[in-house]
């Protein structure tokens, strides 16, 4: 379900480039998002971590092209080794999953997205199969309206729709909200499998999820990426940075001890 012939033939990779990026918020003078210079290949899953209001979702939306910065630029494009006439397909799954509904009922939403993605002939079947991996029976929910799904069903449906669209880059924003222990395990397995052949960015305040899924970590605080690197670099360097390390110390050491 997750293989993509283009990837097997071309071994493409996605890169994210940001230059002089500044994003301000209306009616909020005390906060702005700022990335002076960043070039990052998404060869392995990236986990974006930060406290409430640190700018994680805004950054994810800007990478997906859904939010424009006030100045500077940020874009996700093919890496220098990849030759393609098409731009990479990016899917951003918002933390409020109700936003993905196009029709009022589940089946209408699936049909509309299938029509919008003619290059994926088995889209509806893929959605059913993905829901099945999440222990949700498509037949049982297909006639329901979005507001008639439970929070867990809604999250699973949104994740299945996003993955079934076969994006080149999938950005999951707080994907564990509404999922219990079983759902989290299923998400880790499904997203992990997907990331073997596709670029993946996971935004979460749940550091243990990021450790399970990601190889590269971006730590955000007050609109800035204050650290980026792999887990061992994070373990060896991050705690040395007093300005941010103290705030994350308890959670970080708890996870480090477990891993």
């Amino acid at each position: 379900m997750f293989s993509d012939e283009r990837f097997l033939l071309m071994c493409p990779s996605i890169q994210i480039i940001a230059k002089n990026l500044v994003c301000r918020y209306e009616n909020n003078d005390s906060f702005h998002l700022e990335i002076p210079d960043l070039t990052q290949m998404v060869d392995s899953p990236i986990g974006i971590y930060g406290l409430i209001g640190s700018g994680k979702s805004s950054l994810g939306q800007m990478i997906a092209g859904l939010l424009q910065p006030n100045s500077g630029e940020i874009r996700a494009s093919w890496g220098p080794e990849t030759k393609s006439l098409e731009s990479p397909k990016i899917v951003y799954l918002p933390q409020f999953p109700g936003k993905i509904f196009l029709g009022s009922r589940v089946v209408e939403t699936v049909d509309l997205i299938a029509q919008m993605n003619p290059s994926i002939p088995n889209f509806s079947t893929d959605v059913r199969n993905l829901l099945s991996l999440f222990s949700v029976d498509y037949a049982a929910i297909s006639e329901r309206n979005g507001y008639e799904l439970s929070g867990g069903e809604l999250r699973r449906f949104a994740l299945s729709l996003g993955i079934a669209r076969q994006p080149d880059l999938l950005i999951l924003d707080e994907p564990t909200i509404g999922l219990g222990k079983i759902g989290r395990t299923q998400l880790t397995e499904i997203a992990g499998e997907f990331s073997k052949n596709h670029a993946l960015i996971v935004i979460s305040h749940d550091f243990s999820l990021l450790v399970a899924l990601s190889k590269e970590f971006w730590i955000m605080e007050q609109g800035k990426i204050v650290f980026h690197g792999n887990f061992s670099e994070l373990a060896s360097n991050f705690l040395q940075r007093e300005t941010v390390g103290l705030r994350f110390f308890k959670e970080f050491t708890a996870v480090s001890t477990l891993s």
Partner: protein
Amino acid sequence: MSIRFIDVSFAYKEKPVFSHLNLEIPESNWVAITGNCGTGKSTLAKLIAGILEPDSGRIEFPKSSNDEIPDFGYLFQNPEDQFVHFFIEREIAFNLENQNYPIEMMTLKVRNSLGEIGLSDRRKDSPNRLSGGEKQRLALMGTMISEPNYLILDEPSSYLDILAQNDLIKRITALHASGVGIFWITQNEQEKALTKFCIEIVDGNAKCFPMKGSC
């Protein structure tokens, strides 16, 4: 005294959630509501709060000394479902306005509450511009501010980071100590362990039992 479900049935269109449910929940306790995805946790909570009404059967509440049924504050799973105003400060004030609070007292409470959740500078902003975690903290504050007899919280920590989760637990512990009954929908074992009783929903049936180690 307890909250009693007596032969309660409820269905969404043709999809039954509860059939002839009988359940007794100890009054003014801290109660977890648990169950797998789609089993009816939020539905049970909405029935308790009176947001949904049973198709048949009835729910009895312990009456206070002045013979009134208790007030319920309800935090929706999705904080965006909670918001009714374009401005953050009006959102916080909404429940107080409904209870006809004196304007001076309301102004003071709103100002203090905004400070507690770090949104004083953004009081004229729209709730829709907040991050997910900020939205959940705003919705929670708007629910708690009117000091209801019961708080019904549908996965209240799901959008919160570790610091805000700890803050939430401190607030709820203090509220419960002051006599507020808490219903906490959760799929998190650590949160479940904080509660005194647990309602577990399996296959349309709900049972309430004391948590181990609680008195």
